[in-house]
C-alpha cells in the first residue's frame, strides 16, 4: 500500500507536467503547455508564476505521503 503511495507520487508528477504528449495527441492545453508556451514566447514571469501551481501541489502531496510514512518504504 505504502509502495503504491510512493509510486503514485512519481506517476502523478510525470502526468501533471507533461506538455509533449498533449501537444502531439490533443489540442487541449494543460498546466505544462501554459508554462512551456509562455516561456518560448518570452513571457517568463507568467511561466514562472504558473509553475508555482504544480510545485505547491507536489509539496502538499509529498507532505501527505510523508505523514503516511511512505518514505520509509521508498
Amino acid at each position, binding site marked *: 500500500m505504502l509502495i503504491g503511495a510512493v509510486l503514485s507520487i512519481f506517476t502523478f508528477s510525470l502526468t501533471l507536467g507533461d506538455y509533449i504528449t498533449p501537444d502531439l495527441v490533443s489540442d487541449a492545453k494543460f498546466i505544462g503547455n501554459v508554462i512551456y508556451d509562455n516561456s518560448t514566447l518570452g513571457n517568463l514571469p507568467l511561466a514562472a508564476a504558473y509553475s508555482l501551481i504544480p510545485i505547491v501541489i*507536489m509539496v502538499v502531496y509529498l507532505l501527505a505521503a510523508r505523514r503516511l510514512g511512505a518514505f520509509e518504504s521508498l
Partner: protein
Amino acid sequence: MTESRGTRIALKAATAFVLGFLYLPLVILVIYAFNSSRIQSWPPQGFTLHWFGEALNNPQVRTAIINSLTVATVATAVALVLGTLAALAVQRYSFFGRDTISFLLVVPIALPGVVTGIALQTSFVTLGVDFGLLTIVVGHATFCVVIAYNNVIARLRRLPRSPEEASADLGADMFTSFRRITLPSMGTALLSGALLAFALSFDEIIVTNFTAGASTQTVPLFIFTAIQRPTELPVVNVVAFVLILVSVIPVYIATRISGGESAGKL
C-alpha cells in the same frame, strides 16, 4: 484461487485490451518504418529498408544519436556517484536533520519535468551558462539520481551489517571497508540502476527541450522537430523504432539482473 468461468474470460479480455492499448501504436510505428511509400496510409504499400539507409546517412540523425549517447553516459555516471552517496548517508547514518535532508532530496525529483526544465533554463540564463551538452547532462542528472538512489537504498536495507563491522574490527578503515565489502555487494543494484538511468536519459524530452538550447539536438528532440515536417516522417519512424530498441534492451537486462527487486520502481 479459483475464479468462475465468467471472471476468467473477463480477466483475459481485460489483459488483452490493456496489452493491445500499450503495444498496438508501437506495432503500427514499426510497420510504417518498413513501408515503401513516403505517405503514411493504410494498408502499407510494400516492404523496404530504404528509410534505414536514409536515416543512417542523415547527418542530423547521426549527431543526435552521438549527443544522446554522450549525455546518457555522463548523466548516468554522475547519478551513480551522487545517488550512492546520498543513499549511504540516509541509510547508514543518523544525523541531525536527516529526515529533512531526505525530504529535500525527494522534492526536486518529484516535481514535474516542466518545472525542473524552466527552473534550470532560467538559472542557466541568469548565471550566463552556455546551453549545450553540459546543461542537458545537468538536467538529466536530476531525475537519474533518484533511480540510482532508489536502487542502492533498496539494496542497503537488505544487506546485513555484520561483514562491514567485521571488516572494521579487523582494522580496515572506512574507505577500505566500502571498497572491499559494501561496493561489491551493491554491484548488481548499481548496474540495474545505471541501465534504467541510461534508458530514461536517452528518451527524455521534457527537461531536455528547456536545457538544450537552439543548436544542440538529441534523438527525442530530433523526432519532435522532424515530426512536424511530413516528408521526414519515414525517417522519424525509423529513428523511433531504433529508440524503442535502445530503450527496451537495457530495461529488460535491468529487470533480469535485479530479479524484480526494485527495477520497476522509478
